[in-house]
């Protein structure tokens, strides 16, 4: 089972829909421990991505993802902008020229993406950031692929791990980003960035599960 360019494009469109639906939810999470803009920012960013997609839809997957990254960098702002921008830029660079992705390609893509986020933001697992969703997802995906599972099963595991990682942020004390200023008061709230990361991965799973 491979992932086609068409699926990647549909994934990005689905992400735009999902983020629009969850705009208020993400913003509410950010209001509790941040500055109440994460949903608004991500929604604005993926609206911009939607606007750019027609221009690159007939190019390769690498170009599509790099364009997505650039669109996010120049429209999201905040912490989310450079982080998700870097995530998609690096993902695109990792699969330059490809028209479809094997499970191994997807491992390469995800690893590059997550590494980019870590380099840019310097956060570790446990700091209560999107990294807490992304790193377990990457590990679960890689493990499943190495065990010979198909892409959809591997993605299922990745999404489950991301969800778990996202929920695990609730009891954490934030050490990075705006939430860190709250100290103890950051405990008990789910991290908005971890939540958007989970939603983005979930959208990939849902896209892959659809009839191609």
């Amino acid at each position, binding site marked *: 089972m491979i992932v086609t360019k068409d699926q990647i494009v549909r994934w990005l469109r689905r992400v735009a829909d999902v983020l629009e639906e969850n705009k208020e939810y993400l913003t509410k999470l950010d209001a509790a421990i941040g500055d*109440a803009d994460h949903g*608004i*920012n991500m929604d604005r960013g993926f609206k911009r991505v939607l606007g750019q997609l027609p221009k690159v839809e007939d190019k390769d997957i690498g170009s599509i993802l790099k364009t997505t990254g650039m669109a996010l*960098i120049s429209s999201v702002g*905040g912490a989310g*902008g*450079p982080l998700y921008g870097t995530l998609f830029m690096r993902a695109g660079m990792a699969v330059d020229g490809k028209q479809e992705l094997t499970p191994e390609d997807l491992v390469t893509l995800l690893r590059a993406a997550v590494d980019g986020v870590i380099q840019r933001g310097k956060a570790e697992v446990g700091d209560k950031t999107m990294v807490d969703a992304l790193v377990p997802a990457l590990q679960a995906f890689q493990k499943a692929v190495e065990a010979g599972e198909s892409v959809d099963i591997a993605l299922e595991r990745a999404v489950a791990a991301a969800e778990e990682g996202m929920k695990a942020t609730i009891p954490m004390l934030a050490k990075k*980003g*705006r939430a860190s*200023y709250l100290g103890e008061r950051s405990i008990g709230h789910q991290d908005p960035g971890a939540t958007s990361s989970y939603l983005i991965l979930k959208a990939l799973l849902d896209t892959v599960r659809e009839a191609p």
Partner: protein
Amino acid sequence: MKKLINKPENFVRESLEGMAYAHPDLLKIHLDPNFVYRADAPVQGKVAVISGGGSGHEPMHGGFVGKGMLDAACPGEVFTSPTPDQMFEAAKAVHGGAGVLFIVKNYTGDVMNFEMAAELAHAEGIPVQNILIDDDVAVKDSLYTAGRRGTGTTVLAEKICGAAAEAGYDLKQVADLCRRVNLNGRCMGMALTSCTVPAKGTPTFDLGDDEMEIGIGIHGEPGRERMKIKSADEITEMLALAIIEDPAYTRTVREWDMEKGEWVEVELTDEPFKEGDRVIAMVNSMGGTPVSELYVVYRKLHEICEKKGLTIVRNLVGAYITSLEMQGVSITLLRADDEMLRFWDAPVHTPALRWGM
């Protein structure tokens, strides 16, 4: 939502357009990407001083663009750091051959976006340096947090560095001065009410009718402690003593190595205030607090400084770095040496700060 706006998504742009209509002698605006820049930019041979950050803190930064202060300001969406393309395009527009200083408030988003902008500028051959402002004593620990936030000292740094650039300082000199201003400035704020981000439409946080929040961030981030409202004198004392008695603070920041073209980590320590210091004091409205109340705060601050042996040699009382319509106040003290005072007193002509011309 009690605001004079049209559609929330047009708020930043329309506000910029209003500025451009009101101050054609001082500034121009560029839309998409958004930035405000000096009407006479680029000023040949002068270091260009650029700042930026989320909107909602007006007059900062756009209101400080003009002669003797900022060459450009990059406003993001409300409370959202601007994007690298804004800073990069602004840098190209105002670069007069002597390089660009980015004055960056220490928030994760601002730092990352300005770092990307610096990388872009460098790649374009524009000499660049990023200096962080991290002066908010409400944040105690830099190991377990993203470090102190950039607040009131930003305004003072923009004035002083703008004047130094105008006086012919080169990029390294302006950057060194900016770093020194940051290391000598400390700030703390509090809120009586929340503010409402236009795109969200409801207050960022809820405060009871008899509650206030001490150590608030300028983005409506909840502060350090919530308590019953106290008197102006007690509030002033809480803020002023937190600033004056704040111990030395050490942190590691990233600056740009212009020669090598890469980020280097620098350890910086600032020294506490001590008797005999001369200070510039700013008593700043969070947006919704009128100036009459600021003077009540200034009165007490003056007394406290006197008791502590600090002499206020210059002051600003007004709304300079705000959080939309939030009611509340922040106090900033900057230990000022002769060089800083000279540049403080130098003429400035911007929409929000003007003297000597």
